[in-house]
C-alpha cells in the first residue's frame, strides 16, 4: 500500500472552479480558461509515494507544487480528486479527523522555517507532541532526542531568533522528527538557505533518512537538489505532471522538450552513479586458477592485471602479470599466494564526481563492490568519460 496516493487531483481557485475542472480534464491548457476567472494551480495530478521513499516534486514557481503539497495534508481541500494517506481518503474527512491525521501521520517542514519566535527551541521541537497532549516531561525528552539527531544539542533553551538560518531549519526538521510521523512533507525546505548550508542539510537529510526510513515528499525548484535527494522525481509544469521517474530516467529519457531543457543544467557527474557507468569485468580469475591460465587470459585481453573472485563473486584482490609470472617460475600450482588486496573500490551508489580522484590515482579500472564485497562490475577510465560524453550528446 502506498504511503501517499494522489489521484486525479485538481485545485482551482475561483468561483467557477467546477466548470474549469471540466475544461481542464478535456486537456485544455490553463491559460485557455482564463476567461472563467479562475486560477488552476494543480491539474489532473496522480502519483503514488511508497513507504520509505523520498519523492521529490520539482517545478518552477507557479507550477503548483506548493498547492499540491498543501493538499496532501488537507491544508487545502482539492477541487476534485482524492488524496489517500495510508489508504485513507482524507478529502472527505471532518475537521477534527483531519487534525488527527495531521498530528499522527503527516508532519511538515516549511520554506521559511515557520518556527514560533516566542518559544525556546525545545518547545518548538516539542510542538507536535504538545498538540497531541503528551505530558510535559515526556515531550521534552523526545524533543531533545530529535534536536540531538539534527545536531542541535545544547541549543534547546535559545530562542529561534538567536539561531542562524541553517540551524533554524534544523529545528524545523527536529519538530517534524519529534512528531514521529511516518510521512514528512518538506515544502522547499532548503530553498531559503545559502548554497553551502543547503548542501550540508541535504547530506544530513540523506543520512537521517538512511537510519529513519521516513516517507518524504520534498518540494523544490532546484533540479540538482531533486536529483540528489529524490528516489523518484515528479516534474510539474503549469500545474500538470510532466514526468515521474528516477533521476536517471529523467536524465536519459526526458518525456518532452520542457524536461529536457531542465536537465541541460544538471551536473551529471553528481547524478550519475557508479552503477550506471560501470561495465562488466572483461575477465576475472579464481584463486585456484594456475598462473599459466591467468597469464594467457591477460595476454588475450591485453591487460597486465586481473581481479580475483571467489566462487560467490566476492572480490578477494587482484593479481598482476609480474606476480603471476613469478608464481609460475616458482612452480606454484595456483595463484592464491600472488593475490594482493585491492586498495580502492567503490560502492554502486557513489556519484561519478567522487570517482575521478580514485580513477586518476590508478591506471587500473575501479572495482564496484556492494555491501557484501561482491563485485558488481568495473569502471575503466574510458567509462567515466563516456558518462560525461552522454551529457554532450543529449544537449
Amino acid at each position, binding site marked *: 500500500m502506498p504511503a501517499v496516493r494522489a489521484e486525479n487531483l485538481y485545485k482551482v481557485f475561483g468561483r467557477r472552479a467546477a466548470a474549469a475542472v471540466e475544461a481542464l480534464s478535456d486537456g485544455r491548457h490553463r491559460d485557455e480558461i482564463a476567461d472563467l476567472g479562475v486560477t488552476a494551480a494543480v491539474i489532473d495530478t496522480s502519483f503514488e509515494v511508497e513507504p520509505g521513499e523520498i519523492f521529490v516534486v520539482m517545478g518552477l514557481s507557479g507550477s503548483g507544487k506548493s498547492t499540491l503539497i498543501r493538499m496532501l495534508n488537507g491544508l487545502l481541500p482539492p477541487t476534485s480528486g482524492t488524496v489517500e494517506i495510508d489508504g485513507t481518503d482524507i478529502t472527505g474527512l471532518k475537521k477534527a479527523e483531519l487534525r488527527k491525521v*495531521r498530528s499522527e501521520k503527516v508532519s511538515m517542514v516549511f520554506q521559511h522555517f515557520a518556527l*514560533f519566535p516566542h518559544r525556546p527551541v525545545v518547545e518548538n521541537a516539542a510542538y507536535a507532541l504538545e498538540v497531541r497532549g503528551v505530558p510535559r516531561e515526556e515531550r521534552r525528552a523526545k524533543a531533545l532526542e530529535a534536536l540531538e539527531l539534527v545536531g542541535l544539542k545544547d541549543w534547546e533553551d535559545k530562542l529561534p531568533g538567536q539561531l542562524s538560518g541553517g540551524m533554524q531549519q534544523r529545528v524545523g526538521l527536529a519538530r517534524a522528527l519529534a*512528531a514521529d510521523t511516518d510521512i514528512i512533507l518538506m515544502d522547499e525546505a532548503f530553498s531559503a538557505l545559502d548554497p553551502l548550508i543547503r548542501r550540508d542539510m541535504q547530506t544530513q537529510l540523506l543520512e537521517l533518512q538512511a537510519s529513519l526510513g521516513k516517507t518524504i515528499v520534498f518540494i523544490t525548484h532546484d533540479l540538482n537538489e531533486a536529483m540528489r535527494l529524490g528516489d523518484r522525481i515528479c516534474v510539474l509544469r503549469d500545474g500538470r505532471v510532466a514526468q515521474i521517474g528516477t533521476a536517471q530516467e529523467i536524465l536519459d529519457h526526458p518525456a518532452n522538450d520542457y524536461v529536457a531543457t531542465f536537465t541541460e543544467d544538471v551536473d551529471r557527474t553528481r547524478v550519475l552513479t557508479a552503477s550506471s557507468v560501470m561495465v562488466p569485468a572483461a575477465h576475472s580469475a579464481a584463486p585456484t586458477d594456475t598462473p599459466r591460465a591467468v597469464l594467457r587470459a591477460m595476454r588475450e585481453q591485453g591487460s597486465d592485471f586481473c581481479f580475483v573472485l571467489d566462487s560467490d563473486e566476492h572480490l578477494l584482490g587482484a593479481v598482476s602479470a609480474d606476480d603471476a609470472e613469478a608464481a609460475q617460475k616458482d612452480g606454484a600450482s595456483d595463484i592464491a599466494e600472488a593475490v594482493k588486496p585491492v586498495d580502492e573500490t567503490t560502492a554502486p551508489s557513489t556519484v561519478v564526481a567522487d570517482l575521478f580522484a580514485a580513477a586518476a590515482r590508478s591506471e587500473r579500472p575501479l572495482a564496484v563492490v556492494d555491501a557484501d564485497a561482491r563485485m558488481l562490475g568495473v569502471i575503466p577510465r574510458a567509462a567515466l568519460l563516456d558518462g560525461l560524453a552522454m551529457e554532450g550528446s543529449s544537449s
Partner: protein
Amino acid sequence: MNPMTVPVPRLPVGDSFDASIEWLRNRLEGFFDVLGAIIGACVEGLTSLLAHTSATQFTLLACAVIAVGLLRRGHLRPVGTAVAVWAGLYIAELAGGAATAAVGSMPAALFSSAMSLYQAEYVYPPLVLALLLLTALVVLSFTYGRGTRQELLAALTCVALFAITLAHFTLGVQLSLVVLPLFVLLAYMVVGWRVALFTVLGFLLIISMDKWENAMSSLALILVATGVAIVVSLPLGILAAYSDRFSTVVRPVLDFMQTLPAFVYLLPAVAFFSIGAVPGVIATVVFAMPPGVRLTELGIRQVDKELVEAGEAFGAPDWAILRRIQLPLALSTIMAGVNQIIMLSLSMVVIAGMVGAGGLGNDVYRGIAQGNVPVGFEGGIAVVVLAIYLDRLTAAITRFSPAGRAAAAAR
C-alpha cells in the same frame, strides 16, 4: 425671483434615536441597572483603594507582590491554596462574622502591642485575615524560594509594608506622600530611572496642587473604563481578524463611535445610568474602545501566515492556534491598543466630569464653568502628568511580551 427649492423630506433621525434609546431602556432596564451597579462598585472600590488606602489593603497589596514573585517561580499550587483559604475565611467573615468571633475569643494580649503601636481602638478582623495570608506567603517564600531572590523580595516587602503603615497610621504622614514611592518604584521597575524621576517630580506637583485625591479618583475611573474597554474590544478584535465580513461591518461602527461627538452619547448614557461615575465610564468606553478593536485585529492578522499554517499542519485546533501562537505574537500590537485606550480615556476625563464623575474632570469643568483659570489649568496639568505616566508605563510593558522578548533575542 426666488431660487428654486426642492422639497426634501425631513427624516426623524434624532427622534428615532431617542425613541430607540427609550425602547432599549424599557426592555433592558434590569440589565443596565446590574451593569451600572457593577461598574459603579468597581470605580468606588478602586477610588477608595487609591485615595483612602486602608491598612488591610496595604497588607493585601504586599501579599500580591509576594504572590506574583512566587507564581513567576511556578509555585501555583501552594499560593493558590493559601489564597483560597484566605478567600474562604474572608467570605465566612462577610457572611457571618466568623473571623470577628474568632478574634473575639482569643486573648486580648495577642493584639494589645500591635494596637498600641498603631494607636488602634479595636482589632479589625479583615486585617487579621490579611496578615495571616501575608504570613503564609512569607513562609512559603522561605520554604520554596530558599536561596533565591524570592526571600529578599518577601523580606523587603514586609519591611516596606511596616514602614508605610507605621508612617501613615502612627506618625500621620499623609497618604499621598506614603503611596508616592510605590508609584515611583513601579515606574522604575517597568521602564527605568528617567520615568521614575519624572514620576517623583510630576506626582509631587500634583500633591502640591492639592489634586491627589481627584487624580486618584480619575485614575480609578480610567482603569475601570480601560478594563471594560479591553474586555469588550479583545473578543471583537479577534472576531474581526477571523472574519472579513465581520471586519467590514464593524469598521464603520467603530468610526461612528470614535467620531460622534462625545456629548451626544453622554446624554443617553445619563438616561441609562443617571448621574455619576458610571455614565462617565460608559462614555469613555464607547470613545476609547475602537483602537483596541482595530489593533487587536491588526495584531492577529499580522502574525506570519506560515506560523498559523504550521500550527494547522501539526493538527492544532483553532483555539490553540489563537491562544498559543496568534495572541502571544500579537500581544505587542494589542498592548499598543491598550495604550491608546488609556490615552483616549484620559482625554474623556473632562467630559466625564460634566456628568458628575468627579476627579480631575470636575476641577477642569468647574474652571470652565466659573471662568476660573487657575483651577482649570491645575486640573489640566494633573491630567497631563497622569497621561505621561500611564503612557510610558504601558508602552514599556510591551517589552515583557513574548514577541518583544523574541525580537530582543533576534537582535
